[in-house]
């Protein structure tokens, strides 16, 4: 009865990018039944990447970031209300206001939230921020506009680095504390992290690596922090950029395969239950999902990427209203970007799934390059710095499992294009920022390289 799939009650839990795009796609795919979107935040779906860029720079305000619609999804929006559980047997989603919503098919797109400072009391000091929501963005932007003496950023991942970049652009003093050996090392490996460190220092960032923050000081208001090397940083604003936590707690009793790494699903976005059996009526999309990818050894990937939310939402929506033989796999190659310190960094593939890298075009000195990542002799990722137009070529190499290092003949070829060097991707446990791409199965056997 494939016709029935276009009818019935669809509930989407999560009203951000993935939830919105899935809602639009469901209608495009011909859903004629009812559509309800539940969101914990009281706002229409909005765009988060500008929060660490335009909003901090004062070029946009956090309350103007609503996403445009591709089409009106004709949905009932239940905003400002948290979902508290799912009953898979009764097919109902319960809400914190006591109501329960019946569904025929459910999409979970609850995303992530910022990892808070572990000491709750210290984290509650005035002047201590995380950055995930538009309230976070508005609050931090307001504080930065008041020109603090110094900003301490804890965590040198993409968000932390972008915040530091915005601070320097505003002319504010900023200290970045990172537990790993350099910023971005968890996502990009050793070589590019050294470039990231140079860029930060050249732009006047007080970069402290190999340290952790042991305590936040202040009596009501944040005044500074203690570092593990015994030093102290005096600052009046602190941004905790320690990565994200997946919003899965509400599913603890559901029987779904939901854990700290996300909700496991198959390539068709169908959720697994706790026994590893795939469900037929519960789907997952966006940051909260973890899914197998054939190009990366069928390991489960969790991606905190804008593009993944869009692509996976489209696949999930398609599969929610089409019978098995017409369903599509989510096979998109991961892509993400970051703009910081005047450089545009773009990544395709999974850089952490690598043992060696090579600078295939450009150079570190020119601040313009394409770095290619290989794992056991095949190309698995590429990162460009101000060379985005080269990315399609390297994406093709990844898609076709091309041999690593990449073939000769490229223009603007680095002198060292034949010299592969260890990718030096650290164990995530040595970082203070969480990786934005996590291989949640076994790690590739890179411990063979000298630590």
């Amino acid at each position, binding site marked *: 009865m494939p016709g029935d799939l276009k009818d019935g009650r669809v509930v989407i839990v999560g009203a951000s990018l993935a939830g919105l795009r899935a809602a639009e796609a469901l209608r495009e795919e011909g859903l004629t039944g009812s559509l309800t979107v539940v969101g914990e935040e009281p706002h229409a779906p909005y765009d988060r990447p500008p929060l660490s860029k335009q909003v901090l720079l004062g070029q946009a305000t956090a309350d103007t970031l609503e996403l445009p619609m591709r089409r009106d999804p004709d949905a009932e929006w239940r905003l400002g209300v948290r979902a508290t559980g799912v009953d898979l047997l009764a097919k109902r989603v319960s809400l914190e206001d006591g109501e329960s919503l019946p569904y025929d098919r459910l999409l979970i797109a609850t995303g992530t939230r910022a990892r808070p400072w572990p000491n709750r009391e210290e984290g509650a000091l005035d002047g201590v921020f995380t950055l995930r929501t538009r309230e976070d963005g508005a609050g931090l932007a307001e504080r930065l506009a008041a020109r603090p003496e110094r900003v301490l950023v804890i965590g040198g991942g993409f968000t932390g680095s972008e915040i530091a970049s915005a601070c320097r652009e505003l002319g504010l003093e900023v200290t970045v504390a990172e537990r790993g050996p350099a910023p971005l090392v968890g996502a990009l490996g050793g070589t590019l992290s050294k470039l990231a460190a140079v860029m930060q220092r050249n732009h006047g960032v007080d970069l402290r690596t190999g340290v952790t923050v042991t305590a936040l000081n202040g009596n009501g208001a944040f005044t500074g922090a203690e570092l593990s090397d015994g030093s102290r940083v005096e600052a009046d604003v602190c941004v905790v950029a320690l990565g994200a936590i997946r919003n899965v707690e509400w599913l603890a009793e559901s029987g779904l395969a939901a854990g700290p790494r996300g909700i496991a699903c198959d390539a068709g976005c169908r959720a697994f239950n706790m026994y590893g059996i795939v469900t037929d009526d519960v789907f997952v999309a966006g940051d909260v999902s973890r899914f197998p990818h054939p190009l990366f050894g069928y390991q489960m990937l969790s991606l905190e990427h804008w593009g993944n939310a869009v692509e996976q939402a489209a696949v999930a929506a398609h599969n929610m209203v089409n019978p098995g033989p017409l369903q599509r796999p989510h096979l998109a190659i991961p892509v993400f970007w970051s703009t910081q310190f005047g450089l545009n960094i773009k990544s395709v593939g999974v850089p952490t799934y690598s043992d060696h890298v090579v600078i*295939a075009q450009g150079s570190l000195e020119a601040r313009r390059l394409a770095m290619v990542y290989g794992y056991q002799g095949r190309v698995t990722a590429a990162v460009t710095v101000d060379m985005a137009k080269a990315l399609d070529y390297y994406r093709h190499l990844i898609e076709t499992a091309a041999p690593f290092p990449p073939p000769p*003949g*490229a223009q603007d070829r680095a002198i060292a294009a034949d010299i592969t060097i260890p990718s030096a991707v650290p164990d995530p446990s040595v970082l203070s920022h969480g990786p934005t791409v996590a291989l949640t199965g076994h790690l590739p056997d890179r411990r063979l390289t000298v630590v």
Partner: protein
Amino acid sequence: MDSATLLARITDYASRPNPYPLYAELREAGPVVPQADGSYLIGTYHLIAALLHDPRMSADPRTRGEATHKPPFLRLDDPEHHRLRTLAMRPFGPPHSPGRVDGMRGEIDRIARELLEPFEAGRQIDIVDDFAYPLPVTVICRLLGVPHEDEPLFRAWSDAIVAAADVRPDDDSTKPDKAGDQARMEMGGYLLNLAEQRRGKPGDDMLSAFVNEPDPALRLTDEELAETAVLLLIAGHETTVNLIANGALTLLRQPEQLDRLRREPELLPRAVEELLRYEPPVHMRERIPHADIDIAGTLVPAGASVVLVLASGNRDPMRFRDPDRFDPARPDNQHLGFGSGIHACYGGPLARVEAYAALGALLPHLGSARLVEDPPPYRQNAMLRGPRHLPIHL
């Protein structure tokens, strides 16, 4: 017919009014079609797009052994291409001059209106000579800082250079093209001289900006300035004339689409993109592999001439649904009309603004207009394809 003669048949002047059946034959014979002269012809969308992004494909004619001096950035490889294009971009576009083209809109609209003013209903107009040519020439002269009255002078040079750059089969590429090189040198000298006159007394034009750049690291050498200015002056009008003329021709051939555009003027920006797909001003680009490479199963040796037929990729049914239909509301229109990759058209934004202005000004006149000749007489050039004249009765 023998697919090895495709390039010869495409470039044959008799094919100019409608090369599209030959492009269909090319895609059918492809994806990589060796030619009798040793070159390779490619006409499928995805392969063309991939090769335009492939860093192993050189744009520099010296890669296939052509004895020529250093070409302008259009035909250079990175990193030198990047350096010169970035310097040339400084007075023209973002990040340093983001408002330059947008700031010319009012002037471009006015020029378009003024050119059409003398023509009333019942009269005949040559869309090329009376409108599609003078509009971009006037604009590029203002932008670069070239006196408009010198047009006959640089038109002759431009004709010679463009003819020399056309794609021809059996072209002995190692022999320099004397007439083209001579014209390039003279035109370069002329533009360099104009720039020199602005040294120390800059106007609001690009030659002034180039010659008065205070930072030595960002300054073009005399030779670079001459090459760049020649490129911009030629590209600034030889291609836009085709876009505008093709636009008028396409709309007059398809009255229902013309009506639709007149009813829904907000479709104009998308109609211009569709025009760039359907009748692109530039039909072919050449690339040369730096190393032996495998293109879709064909081994193409280093130094071989690979001709990418952009206009064929734009009509590839594997990429565009119903590709031979002109649809101003076509979704997902990632055409190859301005190329793609690092050599994507430098002046594309200016051409677009000129096309919005030109077609916007023409639309009210086209309702009752009719073509005097169909097909119209075409220019000789197969690469920069467009009507030589487009007489219409208003």
